[in-house]
């Protein structure tokens, strides 16, 4: 009520001001204020928001993929292997590492952390998984590797040849790894591995052109990737 009243008062007491403000004095200011608001909110939305949205976490210790890849015979699958039932083991467990890492290898600090904190204490390493899909997703690596003959790189980029681990960024609201939405806050991507959203799966499936099992969407049926 009071603001109503206020308005009434201002409007009725100073009709001249109103006119003036409308006509001359207010004009540039109004535009200026508009621009201030516009620019400020753009900055907030594009720059500050992503910084606030994602928390940065560091891995338990660093890991050199390139170094390991050189040591093994079977490429990525040497460590990230398929189980007999066709399921994908994902990030290796301690028991796979332990063969070589029973004792400290080399002089890196990370190696020391690994052996002392985890190998010695028989604790699994709590890796933060960049490409972790949410619980509602069923992603069959077997179908993609053996069926579609995709390369790991198509989705995981150059992780296999990286020499250190980037910080893990977690969406504070959803708990998802940033790699799912992608680095670009607007959701743009230039490489197939820049994003891991449902749209990306769907896009690839559509390109592959063999799937149209969903009655509703004319694309792949929901249960192909969901559980």
């Amino acid at each position, binding site marked *: 009520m009071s603001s109503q009243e206020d308005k009434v008062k201002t409007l009725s007491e100073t009709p001249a001001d109103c006119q003036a403000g409308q006509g001359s004095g207010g004009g540039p200011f109004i535009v200026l204020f508009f621009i201030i608001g516009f620019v400020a909110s753009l900055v907030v939305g594009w720059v500050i928001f992503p910084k606030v949205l994602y928390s940065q976490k560091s891995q338990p210790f660093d890991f050199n993929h390139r170094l390991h890849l050189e040591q093994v015979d079977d490429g990525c699958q040497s460590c990230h292997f*398929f189980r*007999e*039932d*066709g*399921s994908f083991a994902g990030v290796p467990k301690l028991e796979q590492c332990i063969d070589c890492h029973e004792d400290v290898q080399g002089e890196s600090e990370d190696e020391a952390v690994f052996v002392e904190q985890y190998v010695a204490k028989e604790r699994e390493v709590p890796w933060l998984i960049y490409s972790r899909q*949410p*619980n*509602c997703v*069923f992603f*069959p690596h*077997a*179908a993609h*590797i*053996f*069926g579609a003959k995709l390369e790991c790189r198509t989705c995981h980029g150059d992780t296999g040849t990286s020499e250190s681990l980037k910080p893990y960024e977690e969406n504070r609201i959803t708990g998802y790894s940033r790699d799912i939405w992608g680095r670009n806050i607007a959701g743009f991507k230039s490489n197939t591995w820049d994003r891991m959203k449902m749209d990306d799966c769907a896009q690839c499936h559509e390109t592959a052109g*063999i799937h*149209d*099992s*969903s*009655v*509703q*969407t004319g694309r792949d*049926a*929901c*249960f*192909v990737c*969901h*559980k």
Partner: protein
Amino acid sequence: MKQEQTQHRPKRYGMVIDLDKCTGCGSCMVACMAENNVSFKKDESDKLLSITWMRVYKITNGKPFPDTDICYIPRPCQHCAGQHEGHSPCVSVCPATATDYSRETGIVSQIYTRCFGCRYCMAACPYHARYFNWWDPVWPDGMEKYLNPDVSPRMRGVVEKCSFCFQRYQAAKNKAYLEGRRELEEDEYQTACTQACPAGAIVFGDLNNPDHLVHKMVDPDLKHGGRPRNPEVFRLLERLGTNPKVYYKSGRQWVRKAGDNYLPGEKPGADMHKSHS
């Protein structure tokens, strides 16, 4: 070459439940709950608020003692194909495409993360096979340990239902891919209820595949929505034209008749399968 040809032969997964063998023991219900992370509350005696993807109905012939007879009807989601493949009562009404029909398997899916809980599908389903999560699911401390990672637990406010244990299909496909196959053997993909049924009353398989037991038992008329040709086999509410993929078998006339609605004096017969569109 052969593999190439069979690669896209669509499946029509379905189930036959022998009601004369079914003992109403409830194993299918619990096997389903255990497999599919179905939640439970302290009081589950209000069956209108009790999530049972597989619900065993008890029906009676209505006659007085000692001529009375009872029969149990296990009712999973019927995975209706509808009048034209995929026009299931529920799939057609879901506004957000949270429930879908797959031409490849004939399975009606429900995606809990897509569902926003409007419950239109529940209103549409004459079998009451769909259940709403009125509450947050709560497992007593420690019991969440037995949850199956292949099925995502549902959150409050979404609809859930039987998926024909689709996670088992996914797992079987995984193994097939690893072994360089695309096709699954009959026994590679079986639902939890089928597997558990101590009476062996539930049979599951591909209705399109003449080698599968379901096909042999039903002898489905695939040109007419899979209508059973075996006179002892029937489907629930055949006349609605929902064309379910769950079939029932019974030697008892009154049980078969209870599967559908009939006008007074009307007798169940082959020409009851009327299309309404």
